[in-house]
């Protein structure tokens, strides 16, 4: 039990549970299967991207801010392509992955070859991709998307029946999120590539000395977050059944904050899938709770901001106390005479 206390994820889990209890007490509709499945569905977009952001934070500590732009571009590209040429959801997904991966890999190459900080490069690509998107699409919202997205959104997975005869189900998007989490876990824990990502994040020079190819590790990480952003874009389109140019962009900080609250270190080399999941879950529950408790949506941002501020204050203070009370010398005890 004591070992559990060392983990950031444990506190986060407790927080999530406490939050659930509070919200349910105020509005029992929270803990119903329909509701839970619903907010799990909406959270999936951020959740999928968060897995990618986790990888970026592990490899170098600095966040990538261009992933939302990649998602937006892919969303438009896929919708326009499927409107033009048809196809099915599988092709759309594959296309999304490829496009997202390519866009992300640009970040990886530039960061590695020019040795610039991640945040500067991704700010540049964020602006580049987002700006070009608007230029080529005129910022138009696409209100009608191919029916494949609707079919995808309503795909029956485990149909269940509610008390009053309503049906509810896991959505395919939620499953995609869980699949992304699983994939992320698998790569990080079980593959040489994943361990190399941790190695580069922990001590890049040492990693190079060991013979790890840091270029490919970086390119992979940034391509991966691009791929995941592409998948998130498909999820998003399936949920809102339209393409809106500026709805995903603007939420970078929220996703990054969720990953950081989940335990990823801003110095690199640390982070877990569970923590990322819990972080995203926390924000999703917050948002859902506000809606159920009839707070206007205005309060969402304040709540999230407060959550982040308090969260990292507490976390940093804890780390500060640990540093201060470090044992530097084993002082010899002398008998008091």
């Amino acid at each position, binding site marked *: 039990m004591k070992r559990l206390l060392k983990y950031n994820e444990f506190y986060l889990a407790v927080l999530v549970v406490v939050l659930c209890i509070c919200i349910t007490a105020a509005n029992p509709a929270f803990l119903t299967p329909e509701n839970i499945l619903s907010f799990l569905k909406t959270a999936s977009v951020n959740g999928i991207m968060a897995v990618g952001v986790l990888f970026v934070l592990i490899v170098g500590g600095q966040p990538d801010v261009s992933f939302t732009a990649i998602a937006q571009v892919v969303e438009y590209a896929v919708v326009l392509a499927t409107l033009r040429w048809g196809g099915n959801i599988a092709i759309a997904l594959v296309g999304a992955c490829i496009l997202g991966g390519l866009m992300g890999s640009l970040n990886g190459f530039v960061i590695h070859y020019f040795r610039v900080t991640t945040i500067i490069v991704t700010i540049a690509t964020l602006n580049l991709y987002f700006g070009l998107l608007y230029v080529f699409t005129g910022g138009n919202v696409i209100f009608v998307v191919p029916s494949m997205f609707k079919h995808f959104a309503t795909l029956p997975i485990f149909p269940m029946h509610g008390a009053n005869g309503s049906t509810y189900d896991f959505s395919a998007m939620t499953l995609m999120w869980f699949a992304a989490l699983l994939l992320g876990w698998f790569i990080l*824990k*079980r*593959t*040489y*590539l*994943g*361990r190399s990502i*941790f*190695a580069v*994040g*922990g*001590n890049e*020079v*040492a*990693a190079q*000395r*060991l*013979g*790890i190819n840091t270029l490919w590790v970086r390119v992979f990480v940034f391509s991966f977050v691009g791929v995941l952003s592409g998948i998130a874009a498909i999820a998003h389109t399936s949920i809102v059944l339209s393409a809106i140019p500026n709805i995903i962009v603007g939420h970078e900080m929220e996703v990054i904050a969720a990953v950081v609250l989940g335990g990823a270190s801003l110095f690199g*080399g*640390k982070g877990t899938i569970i923590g990322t999941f819990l972080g995203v879950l926390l924000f999703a529950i917050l948002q859902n709770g506000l809606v159920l408790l009839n707070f206007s949506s205005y309060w969402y941002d304040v709540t999230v901001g407060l959550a982040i501020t308090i969260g990292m204050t507490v976390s940093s203070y804890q780390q500060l106390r640990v540093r201060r*009370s*470090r*044992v*530097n*010398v*084993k*002082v*010899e005890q*002398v008998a008091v005479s």
Partner: protein
Amino acid sequence: MPTMDDFLRLRNIHKSFVGVYALKGVDFSLRSGEIHCLIGENGSGKSTLIKIISGVQPADSGEIWVSGTRVTRATTSEMIRAGIQVIYQDLSLLPNLTVAENIAFAELVKARRAMVHWPKIREIARAAIARIGVNLDLDAVVGELPVGLQQMVAICRALTGELKLLVLDEPTASLTKGEIDNLIKVVRDMQSRGITIMFISHKLNEVLAIADRVTVLRDGQMVGTIDRSELTNDRLIEMMAGKVLKQTRFTYADGHRKKLLEVSHLTKANNFADISFDLYEGEILGIAGLIGSGRTELALALFGIAPADSGTIKVGGVERSIESVQDAVAAGFAYVPENRLTEGLVLKHSVGENLVAAIIRQLVSPVRLIDEKRRDNTIAEWIRSLSIRVAYPEVAVQTLSGGNQQRVVIGKWLATKPKILILDGPTIGIDVAAKSSIHQIVRDLAAQGTGVILISDEMSEVVTNSNRLLLMRAGRIRAEIESATVTDTDVQAMVEAAA
């Protein structure tokens, strides 16, 4: 021709970087199964030689022979295949990963497999740990281990391949006595298994204790290799500096000097306990003790970086509360820190800026703006009086030699006109010749009435440059002795006793 006994033989190695020589005509050999120490000042070419041996850098010309065969293309993978591994001073470990993973990572890279099989990793790690019989928790996070154990992890990692030659670059720099003993044991054990060890060190007492042969490099050239039988401290210093240096002892002119500092029962949990001592004007009080004895922690408490929990500090008879660096400086303290490069200087800033850093708030005109003329005069004055060798004050301080850098740090603190100057390891990483000039500066300072506390790892430094000596061990003061009554070997023994 290399003899059969030689594991490694370098002949006539030349290496230069863009027209500047790092190594010139170096002939070097390592006998199989010996413990060989390489000594040299900063700038002597030590690291370049290591890089050539490990294959990181190619030599410009010359021959490399390993086990009697000529190596034609010395790349890292080639040299690793030849059984040569280097453990750098920074250990090159992955601090966020576990012991098991760190040890096995090299094998992971070599295996080139996509998947990671955790039981296999543990097996590799266990095997390596068993080879040197050290106690390591496979699941411990390396970054949280004490330095001594981290080093063991690095050595285990080197053992996962076919190890024939292990090169250790300044291995004992931050080890406690116990850890050093352990390391020596492990090294001797490896030697008995036929592994050749090469040590790079500047700690002459350790070199004397363990080396079978010693090679001295100076200015990129071989000065010579001497056998254990001819090894003495003076001989080594002479070879390193190129001249014979005499050391005279510091003498304290007593005579009713004022008591500057009175420390009573100073205590800080997990750092030191019940520290009491006095300091008089003009004294140099030495504090000797190994790493982990609490000596630096005591200095940091006096200086306000890590204030004590209880006890009193009286400066000039007045009790002072020291909770911050500002408090300490106001009370008259100054501290020349152990880590010159991270704590003593802002490397990218200029010599001038570093010199006035501590007193910048005093160099203002009535309008609260920096009085540039006064500032420049102050800078020039300190450069002159401390003989800091620099072309002009705007040069970045990182371009200076170690000795000059230390003068800048000292100058910065002398500018605050301190009553008590604390020096912590003031000549670490400084040329043997430059060391004595730093000592002279300190002695002159004492002669002018400043009280000096000199903390050092090097017993000869602390014994010859102080009039009184405090011995610290495990956070407490164990003894107070007159420096004139002891030699450095005495003190070394006293400090290690029952450690």
